[in-house]
């Protein structure tokens, strides 16, 4: 069996895990991160991508609000290519309690969030699609953040500085010696090989799945999962984040993101044993669309692209099943102190917005245990892609000859790394996905440098298949490119294609009407009618008579 040795083992490739790997690496420690699926494929990639100003917490949770605004400012500097500084609005509908408006303003000023009361006309100027019947409007420094890019950039930086990453690899158990965690046993799901990693410390950053990781060391850490569903609508119908000015509830936010807009979110408690089989319920879709329409009436006329859900992990610190010990904030556990098991730290709770802070807190503890004195620099050192900020116009000039939309999209997604992707070779900038302007060069870069193992991973790194057609043509093209740029043969690439289309289908089922239904009929005609893709698994072969 293969074994690896390192300083820090991080379990979980979400924002917190990837951020922790980077922080450790920047402080001179070597790390190995193990992720059971793909980077940002769990809770991290399943939220609405809001770059919080903190205003949403300003009334009920001032601590979170302050954390958010402070991280908001940092991320805008170190990760600008993952962020759109759109600004946000809080609007009060006629049916909402007008008192909340003042409470929010007050809370914001306590937390240090710049908030401006603006006229309704001004609000409509900023966001013309807004419901014109609103009573009040507030402007806050909300924005949008792409969790896939953010996590991938953290990984890229860590790898370039010498750390290692294994994706699509399960941690089957923790290795214990003399009451101390010394490593992890792993199973590579692609090669079906088992291996072991030994390290000085193990960081459990696997979110809601952290309960299982702890169990394997005999530690009880109860998670209380809650499901949040979102609906993606085709076309970007708003340019700034639109929040409803009331106590946070279902369907009260519309976030623009890349080429689409997103209505969030519901909140439903679920049983822990159901976390792997989450589906969006029909009534959630109804609530989200109905409430979304109240904020932006155009929602009704717009095609719904897909729906998805994520699971928020709430942690019970002392192992109690219920009560005040369930924390909604950041939870950092030294299992030596809590359970007498040395060598294991759990970082959980928190939110995407505070991933960097969580990583910093974790790495501080790791540093203390390993005697590493170096201070955190992640609030200053930009992520790969965000090194220099050069305006789009300049980039477009630099790559003259390549269409502006291609340069613009690639720069938007990869920041300065656009220079590692685009070249003036016609093949390089030939489009693979027209909806999202993804080129063959970007696919090549993602497969070779961004830990992409399948088309679903490729979607998270490049947006292939995320647009209106949901991968109708580009998924076949991308499958073909895996034989060229990846280590896949034609048969394996075909399997990736099937898996990708099945994965896309999961998010389309809940919104199966109208144009989504038309699109699916077309996709089914092509992949089953024209290509016979569904027959491949039992490719028995029939004699030609």
């Amino acid at each position, binding site marked *: 069996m293969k074994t690896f040795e390192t300083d820090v083992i991080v379990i979980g490739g979400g924002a917190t895990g990837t951020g922790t790997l980077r922080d450790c690496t920047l402080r001179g420690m070597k790390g190995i991160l193990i992720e059971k699926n793909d980077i940002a494929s769990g809770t991290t990639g399943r939220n609405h991508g809001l770059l919080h100003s903190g205003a949403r917490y300003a009334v009920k949770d001032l601590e979170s609000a302050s954390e958010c605004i402070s991280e908001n400012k940092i991320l805008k500097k170190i990760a600008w290519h993952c962020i759109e500084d759109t600004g946000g609005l809080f609007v009060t509908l006629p049916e909402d309690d007008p008192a909340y408006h003042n409470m929010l303003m007050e809370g914001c000023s306590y937390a240090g969030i710049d908030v401006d009361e603006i006229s309704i006309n001004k609000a409509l100027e900023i966001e013309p699609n807004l419901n014109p019947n609103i009573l009040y409007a507030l402007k806050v420094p909300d924005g949008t953040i792409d969790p896939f890019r953010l996590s991938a950039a953290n990984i890229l930086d860590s790898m370039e500085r010498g750390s290692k990453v294994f994706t699509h690899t399960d941690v089957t158990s923790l290795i214990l010696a003399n009451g101390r965690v010394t490593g992890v046993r792993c199973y590579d799901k692609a090669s079906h090989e088992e291996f072991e990693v030994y390290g000085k410390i193990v960081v459990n950053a696997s979110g809601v799945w952290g309960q299982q990781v702890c169990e394997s060391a005999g530690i009880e850490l109860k998670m209380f999962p809650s499901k949040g569903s979102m609906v993606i609508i085709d076309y970007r119908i708003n340019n700034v984040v639109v929040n409803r000015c009331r106590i946070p509830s279902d369907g009260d936010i519309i976030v623009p993101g890349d080429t689409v807009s997103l209505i969030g979110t519901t909140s439903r408690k679920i049983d822990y044993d159901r976390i792997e089989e989450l589906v969006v319920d*029909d009534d959630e879709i109804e609530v989200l669309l109905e409430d979304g329409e109240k904020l932006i009436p155009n929602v009704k006329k717009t095609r719904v692209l897909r729906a998805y859900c994520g699971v928020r992990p709430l942690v019970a610190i002392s192992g109690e099943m219920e009560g005040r010990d369930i924390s909604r904030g950041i939870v950092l556990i030294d299992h030596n102190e809590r359970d007498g098991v040395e060598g294991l730290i759990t970082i959980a709770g928190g939110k995407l917005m505070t991933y960097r802070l969580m990583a910093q807190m974790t790495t501080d503890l790791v540093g203390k245990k390993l005697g590493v004195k170096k201070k955190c620099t992640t609030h200053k050192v930009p992520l790969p892609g965000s090194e220099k900020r050069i305006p789009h116009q300049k980039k477009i000039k630099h790559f003259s000859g390549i269409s502006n939309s291609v340069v613009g999209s690639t720069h938007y997604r990869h920041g300065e790394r656009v220079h590692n992707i685009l070249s003036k070779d*016609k*093949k390089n*900038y*030939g*489009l*693979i996905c027209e909806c999202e302007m993804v080129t*063959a060069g970007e696919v090549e870069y993602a497969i070779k440098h961004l830990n992409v193992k399948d088309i679903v991973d490729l979607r998270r790194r490049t947006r292939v298949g995320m647009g209106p057609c949901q991968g109708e*043509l580009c998924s*076949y*093209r991308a*499958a*073909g490119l895996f*034989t060229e740029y990846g280590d896949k*043969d*034609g*048969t394996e*690439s*075909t399997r990736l294609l*099937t898996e990708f*289309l*099945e994965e*896309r*289908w999961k998010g389309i*089922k809940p919104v*199966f*009407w*109208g144009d989504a*239904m*038309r699109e*699916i*009929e*077309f996709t*089914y*005609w*092509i*992949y*089953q*009618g*024209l*290509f*016979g*893709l*569904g*027959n*491949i698994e039992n*490719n*028995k*072969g*029939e*004699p*030609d*008579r």
Partner: protein
Amino acid sequence: MNYDCIIIGGGISGLTAGIKCVHEGLSCAIISSGMSALHFSSGSIDMLGYTDNGDVIYEPHKYIDEFIDSHKSHPYAKCGRDMVADSLQFFQDQVANRNVEFFHNNSSNHFHVTALGTLKPTYLSQRSVFNEKVRNGFANKPSIAIINFEGFRDFHPELAASNLKRNQLFNDFEIFARTIQLSEFNNTNKNPHEFRSIDIARILEKDKNIERIASQIKEAAGNALFAGIPALLGIHDSERVHRKLEELTGLIIYEIPTLPPSILGMRIDDALKTIFADAGGVFIAGDKVISGEIDNNILTHIHTQNYGKAHLTAHHYILSTGSFFSGGMVSEFDSIHEPVFGLQLDYPKGRSNWYSQNFFDRKSHPFLHYGVDTDNNLRPRDKNGDTIQNLYCTGAILANYDPIREGSGGGVAISTAYFAARQIIEKCKE
């Protein structure tokens, strides 16, 4: 404007019906809102490819009796076996006049190879996909080269070669993938890596290019007997291009349908439209029928987007507007309707009933079955439940069949069109 027959929808079904009508001397107009499903078809005509269990049907003409017995409301049951056979023969004869020659396997099904290297049973194929030579060629376990044109995104020979090789039948064949470069790609302003099938088809259609391309294909194919290439051999005169290429290379040149647009399907579209127009049919393109007036169970006239208040009238009408994708049916949050006349449709309430849990479910998806429920003469019922006496529905708008799971799309489109046309012709002659 008054016609004997107005056909709403200009796909394979509407065109086939139109051709039959004009040949019998009827005045006939087809109103078409745009490109049809032929543009993403395989270009082969399926009649009946799979049983309900998913087993391949080899002899569809023999199987159809049993099939009709167990599928009483299927469109084939309404047409009857003879009508199905006659209609396919009619179709084959018609397009042959326009240089699109179709072959069947002595009235049995044959297989065609897809872009993913799977085999699909079908009934009629164009000469570059199936003929005597192809059949005998395969029998000798030839080596097969699957060749693409460098930069063409919509066909990946490695996928076809590797899956085909995995098929039991082809296990001991030598199958390999190759790529050739077309010099035309160097002198174009457009990025050749973004060419669609149609751009390359236009290059391959030109006489001056064919000798050079033939020698490139021959070189790439090495010792192979078969050269499988993406179906790009021109639209208007493909048969000549195909023959010439075979002659120059000494290879069997085999066309494989690509991602849309389908050149194989466009050949059929082009041939049918030309035949219809040459015979005196009126093809109104780019207009959409939005409503119709029904009086005493008779459709008196229809309104279109472009004609505004003026209307079109005919003695008889055919509705061949296709399924959801083509706009023949429209689904809402929890209901489905037929947008032109509000015809009665057959489907269950509750959209979670409309689909299967897996995308590639062996049972396909229930929604593919949905459509207009007609009487035995293909006449639909209006929203009051009354049968409209002079309106016939044909092709993919019909209920009670699954074109993909059954492998019956082309056959149903053609046979129902032919059946409707025959009834209209009879009535006009009365």
